[in-house]
């Protein structure tokens, strides 16, 4: 099976001149789950943004399956984004739609019938411990609850790839562990998972492959079996 995702010598320099990624290469197999860690400003979010086309690399190639993301332009950007579920570091919920409608969005965008979508949204809400908050507006939730809504929205449509940027930054350790278990169960459904996180304790506990970024460079690519040695 070809890799789901491949970075080939990717460089990203922001307009201001700041180099956020330098010669980054790696690949992610179908059904794999892995972490990206690194200090604040190391380039984790930038790496994820290249995958869902919020940013474009200055050099190198990003391949999603057979698809070269450099060549995805215009209307096909939207189609690509529907295949990638994203948990944003700053949640990005629609303030004037209910929790339920926020989570249903990816399904609506894919043209799912309202009834089917509602049933699926309710099941995800239950699973994330938000069953009672479906009709609330995002502004009426605690930060951790908002983060979980963002996670629900990213997973609800069973994307080919899930990229999650610091998905547990606002969650207490128990909830964080539960979310990680949820992510770890996604590969069974055929979803590959890429999680950026600072929470080294959590990362180590999960025993998955870890990419370590340092000032934009890929400093380490640790296999699960080597993790205990670190």
């Amino acid at each position, binding site marked *: 099976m070809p890799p789901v995702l491949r970075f080939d010598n990717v460089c990203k320099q922001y307009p201001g001149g700041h180099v956020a990624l330098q010669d980054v290469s790696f690949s992610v197999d179908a059904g794999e789950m892995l972490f990206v860690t690194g200090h604040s400003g190391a380039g984790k979010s930038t790496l994820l943004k290249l995958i*869902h*086309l*919020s*940013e*474009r690399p200055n050099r190198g190639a990003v391949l999603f399956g057979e698809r070269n993301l450099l060549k995805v*332009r*215009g*209307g096909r*950007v*939207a*189609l*690509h*984004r*529907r295949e990638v579920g*994203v948990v*944003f570091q700053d949640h*990005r*919920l*629609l*303030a*004037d739609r209910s929790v339920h409608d926020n989570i249903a*969005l*990816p*399904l*609506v*965008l*894919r*043209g*799912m019938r*309202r009834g*089917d979508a509602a*049933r*699926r949204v309710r*099941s*995800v809400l239950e*699973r994330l*411990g938000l069953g009672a908050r479906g009709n609330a507006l995002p502004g009426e939730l605690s930060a951790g609850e908002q983060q979980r809504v963002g996670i629900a*929205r990213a*997973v*609800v*449509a*069973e994307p080919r790839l899930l990229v999650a940027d610091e998905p547990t930054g606002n969650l207490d350790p128990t909830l964080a562990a*539960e979310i990680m*278990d*949820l992510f770890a*169960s996604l590969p069974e*459904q055929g979803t590959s998972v890429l999680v950026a996180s600072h929470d080294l304790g959590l990362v180590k506990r999960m025993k998955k492959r870890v990419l370590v970024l340092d000032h934009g460079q890929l400093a380490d690519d640790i296999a699960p079996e080597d993790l205990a040695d670190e």
Partner: protein
Amino acid sequence: MNEPIARAKVPARSRPGAWLDHHAYSVVASLGRLLRRPWSTALTVGVMAVALALPLGLWLVLANVERFAGDVQASRQLSIFLKQDTADARAAELAAELGRRADIGGVEHRSPAQGLEELRERSGLDEAIDMLGENPLPHVLIVTPAGDEALLADSLRTLPEAELVQHDAGWRQRLDGWLRFGGRVAWVLAALLGLGALLVVGNTVRLDIQSRREELGVLQLLGASDGFIRRPFLYLGAWYGLAAGALALGLLAVAGAALRLPLADLAASYGSGFALQGFTPRQALAVVAGATVLGWLGAGAVTGHFLRQTRPTET
């Protein structure tokens, strides 16, 4: 916490019905958005309505003036001054003869006495005219042409009894001056107002979009197509236009009511039964439909601009 999420399979692309669903949803959702903020909606619709009402009102005024001028034009007549020595009986006979001609719509016979009376009124020199010893005026036949005016005038000039066939050239020149002036004013105003209406519609939708920039950005990140993002705004613009068009008609009706009385007075002083005419139902419908389309197009243009702007990845 460990049941699987999946139930219904998520389709890769939209099913055909989804497109229609989203249109229906957008119609209702955009209306809901307007009604949830009644004051700001009223403000926006008010601005648009005033901008629409002004050029429309101007158009109505011009249409009425033209109609009025048309009335006057249609009743423009030829005067045949008969030779001084024409007998009263012959004049009446000639009037009857001419009345039977196909190129003549009607003939009015004005005797010298009647002519003097009219002159008295038109010139305002009543008592000066009373001092005239004898009536120096000839018989006049006032002819309403049925066909071409100039041809008829030429043919009437060949009548042996005709001393003179006359058009009222000075009067016509003056009316034309006013109409030219009115037309120029109308164009200047229409240009200003058309510009105003355009600016208002565009600006309103632009600011509306600007205050929802973030929301649109999120939708784009989730993979919403341009059409999906644009749709609610198109309907929003259409609703604005619809409401503004209806309100503009209402404003014009009120303005018309306020003008009816003084205009009737004025018309009466000219001895005319002229009355202000508003829109026909068909025209009113066209106005509302036009405003709706205008709102839709304005929203489309501005949303399109936004969509082009927020594609930073297209470098």
